[in-house]
């Protein structure tokens, strides 16, 4: 394991940011720390980098106890949400910073900077100032700067959080490809479950300073350990006594399927390729259902129609009653 975190606690005044956190992050993988804002994921990342110090507990990086190591000695690459570019230096100088600090020969620095700028597709901007770059370009530059020091681990704190939706999607696909090319152990913090599911090899779900679940995107999505993880990874609705995803509900015009429930379509909204609708059962329950536009058109769904809804076989579901929840929550 590349990064071992054991019994880490951190408080800010009365606020408990991390509550006895134990987790191991695997070498060479892309791991996401996923959770709501204020849940402690950024704090954990900053503790790994040494920018914050844990009250108790230990951090081991590649087998070396780094708990008391100064941040500048950890050889950890860190990428900040708001880029933290060195405004008075050119793009090339920004990338060269870590190498210049290490007093590497000039020729070696120049070669390495060229190579990195090529990697992040910024070669033609080498002599510009960061203020002349777009947000996405700045973040790529920050990534090249962090990679320049050949870090043992690369840490990214909400790296795409300040970018608009389209650039964000492009960059996360790019990050995935980059990681396949340069397989340095990478940990990134995000509150966007889609981002985590799409990019990460492994996801650590953190909430209120505690780890809720660790697993691959598929494990988390298909077998959520508890209500919180289920809720956080995607939309959840309730049908009868089970909680399940709105797209895991089948919709039919006749009660052909066993266990189907009669309901009336109360509201129907089309969002791009999908159709979202709210169906009211006879018990007065409002169930969200998501289906494709094609399917909705084939059935001729309209507001006010009577339909029969059934959980799809193999749907991810957890019982709705709090008392039935797994002990992990």
């Amino acid at each position, binding site marked *: 394991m590349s990064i071992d975190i054991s019994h880490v606690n951190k408080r800010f005044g009365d606020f408990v940011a991390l509550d006895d956190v134990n987790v191991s992050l695997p070498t060479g993988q892309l791991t996401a720390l996923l959770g709501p804002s204020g849940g402690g994921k950024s704090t954990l990342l900053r503790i790994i*980098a*040494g*920018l914050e110090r844990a009250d108790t507990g230990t951090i081991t990086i590649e087998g070396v106890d780094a708990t008391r190591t100064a*941040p*500048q*000695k*950890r*050889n*950890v*690459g*860190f990428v*900040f949400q*708001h*880029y*933290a*570019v*060195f*405004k*008075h230096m050119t793009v090339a100088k920004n990338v060269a*910073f*870590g190498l210049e*600090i*290490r007093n590497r020969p000039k020729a070696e620095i120049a070669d390495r900077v060229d190579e990195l700028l090529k990697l992040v597709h910024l070669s033609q901007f080498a002599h510009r100032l960061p203020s002349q770059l777009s947000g996405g370009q700045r973040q790529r530059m*920050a990534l090249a*700067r*962090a990679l*320049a*020091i050949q870090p043992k681990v690369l840490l990214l704190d909400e790296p795409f959080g300040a970018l608009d939706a389209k650039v964000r999607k492009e960059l996360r696909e790019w990050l995935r490809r980059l990681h396949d090319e340069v397989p340095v152990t990478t940990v990134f913090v995000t509150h966007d479950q889609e981002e985590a599911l799409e990019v990460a090899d492994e996801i650590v779900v953190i909430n209120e300073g505690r780890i809720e679940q660790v697993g691959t995107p598929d494990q988390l999505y298909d077998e959520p350990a508890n209500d919180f993880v289920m809720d956080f990874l995607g939309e959840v609705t309730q049908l009868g006594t089970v909680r399940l995803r709105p797209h895991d509900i089948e919709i039919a015009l006749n009660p052909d399927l066993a266990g189907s429930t009669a309901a009336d379509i109360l509201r129907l909204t089309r969002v791009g390729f999908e159709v979202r609708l709210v169906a009211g059962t006879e018990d007065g329950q409002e169930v969200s259902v998501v289906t494709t536009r094609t399917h909705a058109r084939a059935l001729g769904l309209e507001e006010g129609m009577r339909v029969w809804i059934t959980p799809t076989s193999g749907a991810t579901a957890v019982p709705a009653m709090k008392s039935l929840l797994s002990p992990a929550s």
Partner: protein
Amino acid sequence: MVELPTPAKWALRLIAVAYVFLLVGWPMITLVQNAFADGLASFQAAFSDPDVVHAMIVTIEISLWAVAINTVFGVGMALLLVRYEFPGKRALSALIDLPMSVSPVVIGLALLLVYNGRTGWFGPTLEAHGIQVIFNSPGMIMATCFVALPLVVREVVPVLTEIGDDQEQAATSLGANAFQTLRRITLPAIKWAVVYGVVLTLARSLGEFGALKIVSGNLTGQTQTAPLVVEQKYNNFAQGEAYAVSFILVLISVLCIVVVSLLRPKESSS
């Protein structure tokens, strides 16, 4: 922005211009006119007096010392106030602003009480070790530093607050130690604030009168500074020379401001 009717706009502009002209412009113009009333005769008279030349040199020396000391401590103090949390921080911040609200004469008297060689709280001890503070350059530098204390701090604090500590943390994670981070990241980022602080400190130091009059003892040819010479010449009916020296003091201040404003646009357009 509220769009004002044209006559009101012009009236407001006129009031603003008239205010500045009557308060600053006209008196300054009159001063320059008087300095040059007899061509360069007043300047020749003033600068052929060795005491005036000496006073100019003393003023410049004291000012440069005060600028150097206040720049180092001002930047350090600003970093302390913005980047660190500690008990008594608000008190320190208030104390730094004190020279703004206290009359320089009072500052001079306070320093006299502590450092004078006979009855001061600390003065006799220092004099026993051969350091004379009052009626000597150390005391004059201290008084000047005191009155100009907030100028660098108050220029640098808002800039440090605005840039945040992201860049410093990034430098640290890339392996820079505290000194390297300060030299390569923080100082370049606050460069212009420091330059402004230095110019203001220099201008303030060159013109300091009240505190220095008390602390220096106003010894002609020894501890007398240029502003003190202006007063002495004026009182001794050598008004021409007083205006000439005043003009030089104004000129240095104006030059400082001009130099900074010439340097500044180059920076932002590069």
